[in-house]
């Protein structure tokens, strides 16, 4: 018996709030005796919730990239910046290292989230046990880096508060930044509603 037993086989449930190991009474709506949270073997409606949130996030991600996120104005001159043009500006202004960081946080991380969560949904739905270890690792990566996408939103907010020199120079936020902030929140909710245990539910091929 070298196999690693799973909770469902032993009739156990792990409470998602306090991590207590509980006996699975097969009762719908059973509560954790320690913290009172409702016990469930898997997050409820994980696939459909994750898919819905991911699609909503993607729809908001399009205007977030196409619309300008901030306007800089100085003595009659106006300049609208998108996420990409902000990255290019950093690169040109001699801070390529920061340009790479902003590019990663604002473009790579959201794209990675769409691709990884999309892949996890498709593989899960097909019941495939292909590359389970890699998929588990990808999921953890997405969970770990997800909220760093908020970087650009905070940069725009700070510049808005700082650059207030009336007609000489001022910065104001534009709708793109609102769409971007909402995209980040929705992708975070999407990765939270995905249940990583589903990766291993289609038969585990360990050892």
């Amino acid at each position, binding site marked *: 018996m070298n196999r690693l037993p799973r909770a469902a086989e032993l009739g156990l449930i792990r409470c998602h709030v306090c991590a207590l190991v509980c006996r699975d009474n097969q009762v719908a709506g059973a509560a954790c005796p320690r913290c009172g949270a409702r016990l469930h073997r898997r997050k409820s409606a994980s696939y459909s919730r994750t898919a819905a949130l991911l699609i909503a996030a993607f729809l908001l991600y399009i205007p977030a990239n196409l619309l300008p996120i901030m306007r800089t104005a100085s003595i009659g001159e106006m300049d609208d910046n998108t996420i990409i043009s902000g990255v290019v500006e950093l690169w040109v202004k001699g801070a390529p290292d920061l340009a790479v960081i902003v590019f990663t946080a604002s473009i790579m991380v959201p794209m990675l989230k769409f691709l990884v969560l999309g892949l996890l949904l498709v593989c899960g739905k097909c019941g495939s046990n292909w590359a389970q270890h890699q998929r588990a690792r990808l999921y953890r990566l997405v969970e770990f880096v997800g909220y760093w996408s908020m970087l650009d939103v905070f940069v725009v907010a700070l510049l808005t508060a700082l650059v207030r020199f009336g007609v000489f120079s001022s910065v104001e936020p534009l709708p793109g930044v609102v769409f971007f902030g909402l995209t980040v929140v929705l992708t975070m909710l999407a990765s939270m509603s995905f249940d990583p245990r589903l*990766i291993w539910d289609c038969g585990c091929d360990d050892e």
Partner: protein
Amino acid sequence: MDTMSPAPLLICEHCDTVYRRIPLARGQVACCARCQFVLERHHRLGADGLLALTATAMVVFIQANIWPIVTLGLNGQQSSATLWGTIIAMWQQHAQVVSVLAAATLFFFPLMKMLLFGWVFWFARRGERGPGFRGVMIVLHYLRPWTMSEVFMLGVLVAIVKARAYFEVTADPGVFAYAALTVLITVFAGVDFRQLWDVTAERKP
């Protein structure tokens, strides 16, 4: 059914594999053999240490919030910003959604987290659960992914570099408070506060 501390079994959060719990030595980390997720880690710091850490974080957090973060200069004019100045500016500039997001993830959630941590660690020093322990632990569980002070810290650096091309930029004490806060948050990130469920018991009346 009633599993008293320390629970003999452990279930991996990410793949549902069941393990028999073994006591960990100093600095040891137990990882899941199937998915490599961290099951449990040994804590160097006891409740006293964690309480001290929370108090330090609280002081630094207050400083990071009341001190200005950066000052810009243009033709002899000066303009500086604090966190709340930033939140209010976004509200006034018709980006209320961003303003609310920033207020929640940079002020209210971190503040709640520290106050609630302080509350549970204070009682945990004597192995007790304070009033409202259950509710507090549930709130802490749901707050966990929603604090972003470290992202804001990086945002400050990016904003400084962007502004440097047009203005004279002076870093104010708030930046250093934020840097210190980022370090403390990194330390806190390794703390699994759920172990408090195992190491504390309901207070005897």
